């Protein structure tokens, strides 16, 4: 749509800017303030300048948490995006089964995050949980997410896939419904195979929604906190200490507010740069389709 140039539109945007700024800018400035000081307690603080930022470059634990988080986000995306598309292709397109599928598939999205953690904490336990009991006693695979680092990692990964694949599936489903029927008729006339339909009609049309899905899932999996905190608390050892858990241990657990603030600002900046690249890509692709 052709848009009019009108700077008075700022008046309409003003409530949004004010309400978001209030909760965004003031806390952000406080964090900036923390990041250049060493804080011992209320009223006791020393200016340290860029020391914490220099630390961030050297801190091995921070780097480990960052790498762990990158690996986790990568694995989660690698499973959730294809699985979500796969499911969306198989969901009924209309009728009462379509409604039922939508309701069922959206259910995990509306469970409070700590309850998601609780569900999996219970489900994975070897003594009282169905999943843990099944693996240990029926399949004979020793599995214990509180002791074994690998088991803990897979528990969190499976939980994330369970929790968030529905979002990808819903996005892809919505994208599929937006494809006009005529495309399929044309494909049928050409006797195109299912794979060809997917590859040359559905996938290109899904590009936009899939970019949104990747962006949302990347942002959210990169700041995953509540669910692993409930299930493993970051353990065993540091096996599931993702970036947010690491930062909050530093800030709340050890009250090292300065370094925690500096680290999270760097991390905030990194994720913004990445998302900006993504966002511009999305906008440009959208523009390309319109013309």
């Amino acid at each position, binding site marked *: *749509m052709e*848009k*009019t*140039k*009108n700077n*008075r539109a*700022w008046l*309409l*945007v003003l*409530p*949004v*800017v004010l*309400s*978001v700024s*209030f*909760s965004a800018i*003031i*806390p952000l400035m*406080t*964090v900036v303030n*923390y990041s250049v000081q060493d804080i011992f307690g209320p009223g006791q603080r020393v200016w340290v300048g860029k020391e914490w930022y220099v630390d961030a470059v050297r801190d091995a634990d921070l780097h480990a948490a960052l790498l762990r988080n990158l690996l986790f986000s990568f694995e989660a995306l690698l499973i959730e995006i294809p699985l979500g598309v796969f*499911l969306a292709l*198989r*969901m009924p397109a209309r009728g009462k089964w379509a*409604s039922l*599928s*939508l309701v*069922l*598939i*959206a*259910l*995990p*999205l509306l*469970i409070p*995050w700590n*309850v998601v953690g*609780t*569900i*999996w904490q*219970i*489900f994975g336990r070897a*003594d*009282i949980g*169905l*999943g843990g009991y099944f693996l240990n006693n029926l399949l004979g695979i020793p599995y214990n997410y509180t002791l074994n680092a690998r088991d803990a990692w897979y528990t969190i990964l499976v939980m994330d896939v*369970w929790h968030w694949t529905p979002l990808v599936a*819903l996005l892809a489903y*919505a994208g599929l*419904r937006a494809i006009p029927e005529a495309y399929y008729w044309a494909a049928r006339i050409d006797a195109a195979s299912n794979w060809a339909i997917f590859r040359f009609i559905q996938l290109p049309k899904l590009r*936009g929604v899939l*970019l949104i899905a990747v962006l949302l899932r990347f*942002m959210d999996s990169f700041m995953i906190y*509540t669910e692993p905190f409930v299930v493993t608390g970051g353990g065993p050892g540091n096996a599931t200490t993702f970036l*947010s*858990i690491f930062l909050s241990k530093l*800030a709340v657990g050890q009250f090292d507010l300065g370094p925690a603030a500096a680290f999270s600002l760097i*991390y*905030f900046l990194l*994720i913004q740069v990445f998302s900006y690249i993504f966002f511009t890509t999305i*906008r440009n692709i959208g523009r390309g389709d319109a013309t």
Partner: protein
Amino acid sequence: MRDSQRRWTNALIMVLYFILLMLPIYWMLNMSFKTNEEILGVFSLWPRNPTLANYRTIFTDPAWYSGYINSITYTTMNTVMSVAIALPAAYAFSRYNFLGGNHLFFWLLTNRMAPAAVFLLPFFQLYQNIGLYDTHLAVALAHLLFNVPLSVWILEGFMSGVPKEIDETAAIDGYSFPRFFFRIFIPLIRSGIGVTAFFAFMFSWVELLLARTLTSVNAKPIAATMTRTVSASGMDWGLLAAAGVLTIIPGALVIYFVRNYIAKGFALGRV
């Protein structure tokens, strides 16, 4: 023939997926009807002696059920505020080019990306300083941070689907802008408002970190109340499971009512 075969395979895959999806939830439901002795004593796929004791505890203890009321209160406040604030802004984004508009839009989105864990203390200090700490309003305001950008995003998509000629015709017919906006435009994007409200409700309902940080007693959310189940005598698994089951119900009801719009909301979003 090939078509019907494929339909059956698809149905089978979906049924399998839904079984896997529901198993963990079913397990929690199953536990919520058991006593702690039964949970820890015998392993059974369904409750041998179903009991409602866990649910009775929640519905009779004000410390428990007030948690639900608090959560629903601030979630509803947040939903109404998010949609009300986002409506004019989404209109501006869908109709006008203005100085810094695209940058503003990206800035709005970046607020979803802040690592919550470290921002908790500043949030706490901010809301304590302005005297809103431990009120429903505090949580509702804090959740605007991620719900307003999302609402603008979704609403803008719906509004862009309404042809601009409608605005122009209304102006020629002598409608003032507010009258046009409320009498003509809003009814046209009713379903969009429904979808937006659904997402705002969803994200406010599932968020716990901010909600827990900004409250202590009067506005404490149910998700935070659940940590009470850890006591000196160990975990009260049955009670925890029952509380978990009850947090799923409001969400399930909301999905049921908007099921036909969910897909649409995403499809028309700003892509």
